């Protein structure tokens, strides 16, 4: 299976606002920790190892 890179969230602005709101009130370290948990939660939801490998590679690009 290929990693989906086309838009898949119908209300991108709404999601982005919700993402920031979820971090509200956290310190920077707490936000990093929350992001790490979020990555693990979403990765488990995806499950497919090939997709996860492609996602890791895309996120790493240009780092």
């Amino acid at each position, binding site marked *: 299976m290929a990693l989906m890179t086309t838009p898949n969230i119908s209300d*991108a602005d709404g999601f*982005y606002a919700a993402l*920031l709101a979820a971090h509200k009130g956290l310190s920077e370290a707490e936000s990093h920790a929350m992001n790490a948990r979020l990555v693990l939660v979403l990765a488990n939801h995806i499950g497919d190892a090939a997709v996860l490998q492609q996602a890791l590679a895309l996120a790493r690009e240009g780092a």
Partner: protein
Amino acid sequence: MPYDYKPFAYTSPPGLTGAEPRHKVAIVGAGPIGLAMAIELANHGVSAVVLDDNNVVSVGSRAICWSKRSLEILDRLGVGERSVTKGVTWKVGRTFHRETEVFNFDLLPEDGHKMPAFVNLQQYYVEEYLVERAQEVGTDLRWKNKVVAVDRHARHAVLTVQTPDGDYQLEADWVIACDGARSPIRAMLGLEFEGELFEERFLIADIRMQADFPSERLFWFEPSFHAGQSALLHKQPDAIYRIDLQLGWDSDPEQERLPERIIPRIQKVVGHGDFTLDWTSIYTFQCRRLRSFVHGPVLFAGDSAHVVSPFGARGGNGGLGDVDALGWRLAAVVKGERPASVLAGYDRERVFGTDENLLNSSRSTRFMSPGDGVERLFRDAVLHLASRADFARPMVNSGRLSKPCVYPLSAPDVAALPAGSRPGAVAPDAPLGQGWLTEALGRDFCLLVLGQEAPAGTGLRVLSPDVTDPLRQRYLGQAAAAAYLIRPDQVVAARWVNPDAAGIRAAVEAAWEGL
């Protein structure tokens, strides 16, 4: 040629020499919203007096981006075609991160609308056209008439007005405060805005130069010519370009105001020094509104009622939305056709529309001017990904341009009909004979009937054009026939496939209440 600011003639008002009869409506502020309001009321048979503390149009371009909906409203007021002819028409916006285009949008991908997606036109031109039109319809325009006090009574208000010849008192059943973001009327009533202030500063510069930038909205995140910050470029008529540059909260506004500071910044943007500064300003961001826009006999419209950060063109356009929702209702109240309680519909609808504008503006502002920490982290992550993965592009937020809101009306509806013309939405325009549907809708309630006979006994003006492709696409979809009840502000009030006169009459009654 620089704009020629001709002062309007002050004449001594009658109230200085004897008490004036009580006015029906007094509008405070002859900006675009106050002037549009006066013309709209005149179109509905109500004459208003307009009081302005100044005697010239807006100094500086200020509001420049007029949306399709605003142009339709201006057209109804009699200055739409003139505005489009003079203005720069555009519909495409491009957003860059450094030198790479990461997102673009086309605001009007389909043909068959009288008005374009957007027109850039300096506020002073719009005001000039509106003043001329207001004079044509007989509006009592009083320049250098500054309201210094307002006394509210149960059914009217008394204004104390300062003029070069002294003070006088003016009584009006209704006062509409269109006196701008720093509204003195708001302060006199002791009302305060609620909402967010952002710690950010932008420089606005209008420059005059010969150039061939396309008629598009160009926005840059972190361009090489303005490192680490954002920049926006808009083309205006008369070879004027609007450039907005993010300065950051730690900038010194007094220093940044100086031409010797501004000119080198602009040189880096345009790549040369062959331009002149026409107007500059420094602004901060606010996304705030009054809790209510109706305060007894005093009504608020435009910036006096709500202010937004400017990147969605939601200030002036939002104000014209207020004019649209208020004019027909207030006119009916003044003429005794409806109780004053219908003004609550204005309040509900425009608070709803304003909140949509505030939501979009504050999201754009947060993206453009992220706080330290996680806001900056995600903003930079989106920009980083945007040149690599399509999904991140729609998350790049350089402003979501003004669209009319869809009022969430509970009204008769048929789900199978096209979503774009559902109740609460502005009736979509379409070609109609030699003209346009927006022109044919008129100033009262009307029934648009397609593919069937109109039911008898509604008492409404009926529009039953031949069904063309654009009308089918925008109003019928797969249905063979439909009837639309359209409000005086061209908002769809209700729609049916099998209309009956009793249902239509009930929908008219409900429409006065609105949301």
